[in-house]
């Protein structure tokens, strides 16, 4: 399955009222690669993710997961696909009324028949991977912003999904934790053959983990390819992005 597209969009158009956010985006997210989506604020990165995940209905165009067209797929069928996907939202999106443990165990309890004794072990392991062993019984409201994000990442990877989508995973994290998360992402990719789609602005992170870059500009796909190809593409916006971020 090497280099096959896990998700591909064709001429995807997204609109909010009269305003067009995505203008015919055709992009492939490749298997077992860290696909990084980048671009300036308001260029449509989050909208692209939301349309792919059917949180918003595309105006036109198509989205395929593992070769299956999902745009008009019924909910039950799409849920079957979603069980293979882990999603980390920008603000974590943990349920505030239940503990971190309960938040993370939801997918295990709902989608698998794993024994309760194993559920606790799995949750503890996943929390340990994101450096949150001590927070297992806390409520999300008792966590800092960065901790919430890490707990949400633990929830996203609890089923060892085939595809992990992260919206700005390292935003708000200290550099050490951010580097640790990047290592974890690479580890998951290598050991469990996960495919990653990461929306991020962090240049250091991009250099560490990106296999492929998808660059959006004003709702249009500007570039998709490797980091080296991006740097030698001589596209003004991409050059500016990498030169401004240098320090």
């Amino acid at each position, binding site marked *: 399955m090497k280099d096959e597209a896990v998700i591909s969009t064709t001429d995807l158009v997204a609109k909010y009222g009269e305003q067009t956010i995505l203008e015919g985006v055709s992009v492939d997210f490749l298997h077992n690669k860290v696909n990084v989506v980048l671009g300036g604020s308001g260029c449509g990165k989050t909208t692209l993710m939301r349309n792919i995940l059917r949180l918003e209905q595309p105006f036109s165009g198509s989205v395929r997961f593992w070769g299956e067209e999902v745009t008009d797929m019924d909910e039950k069928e799409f849920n079957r696909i979603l069980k293979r996907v882990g999603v980390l939202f920008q603000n974590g999106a943990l349920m*505030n009324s239940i503990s971190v443990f309960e938040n993370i165990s939801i997918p295990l309890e709902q989608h*698998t028949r*794993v024994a309760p004794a194993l559920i606790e072990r*799995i949750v503890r392991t996943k929390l*340990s991977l994101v450096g949150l*062993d001590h927070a297992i019984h806390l409520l999300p409201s008792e966590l800092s912003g960065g901790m919430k994000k890490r707990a949400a990442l633990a929830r996203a990877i609890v089923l060892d999904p085939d595809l992990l989508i992260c919206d700005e995973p390292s935003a708000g994290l200290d550099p050490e934790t951010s580097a640790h998360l990047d290592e974890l992402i690479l580890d998951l990719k290598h050991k469990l053959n996960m495919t990653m789609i990461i929306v991020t602005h962090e240049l250091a992170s991009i250099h560490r983990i990106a296999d492929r870059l998808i660059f959006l500009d004003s709702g249009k796909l500007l570039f998709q390819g490797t980091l080296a190809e991006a740097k030698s593409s001589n596209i003004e916006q991409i050059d500016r992005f990498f030169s401004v971020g240098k320090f």
Partner: protein
Amino acid sequence: MSKVSVSDSTLVLSGELTNKTTYLVYTESVKHIKSNEIRNIDISEVTALDSAGVALLDELQSLASAKGSLIMVLGASQELASIIETFSSLSLPLPESVTKVGFFERIGNEGINAWKNFTILLILASESFYWSIVGIFDHRSARKGSFYAQAFQLGTSALPIVALLSIVIGFILSLQSGVQLRNYGAGVFLADLLSITMVREMGPLLTAIIVAGRSGSAIASEIATMKVTEELDALQVMALNPLRYVIVPKLHAITVVMPMLVAFSILIGMLGGVIISVGYLDLSLANFVNRAIDVIVIKDLVISFVKSTVFAWVIVIIGSYYGLQVRGGAEGVGKATTMSVVNSIFAVILLDAIFSLLYL
């Protein structure tokens, strides 16, 4: 497909060990561990492993080693060993045990918390009244137009529901009493009875319950949301007193609009009585109005006015208190709103009973 077997004190697992298969493997393996002396777990024939599979291996090791011997996992390929290394929970510290709180300790804690909350409520009330009085003379720290906006939100927009419920209550009261009074030929006293009931009791109480349910919940949810989204903190760091900026305009507005709402409720409630008196008891409209006015003394109006004002303050203070006490996110806001409505209505009814005892 996964298989479990035992050979020479070795538990042999084969096939996939993933979150799709661990349930059956776990049940089978536990049976073998209970009935056999297991020293090793052989995974050389395992074809796929994920974190659920590693958790299963850890659990089986723990269960088997509880019988006394150290359990080894054998036959792991380099790939499987690397997955086990990442996802193993054996080296993690054991989860802390949660200490249970005893019955009497819990009652004691509840008592202490109730006292603390009551003192916080009193402090909030006293500060709010202090800044309300200061705010009358100094308008600088209130948002421009906030008084009118609040008066509209808490008062004007409540008119339709107050009107509807008042006329229905006035109608029901008159109907029930009218039937009994007519049996004794005392139908003419319906005006007296309804007038006293509406002015002294039903007007203030009914309006307060509607305002507690409608505006009290709005106050609690607004303040709770502001707290959760750090808007109150933002006011504080801008050197603005959140009480003065958020609660005081509501207190001012409700102090003015509540007596008006009560007066409106009384008048509309009397209208319900007019329908019964004129339509069912054959009283003339002039007779009804004259008797209804004659029976009311200044003291009744003062009590009605004082009651409505006190109820209004209680509703705003309790709504603000629960709004400010909110913890957590969306669910916290919901809880604060519910608690505010329940406790406002309880407080209003309790205060009404006290007023009734004091001014019979």
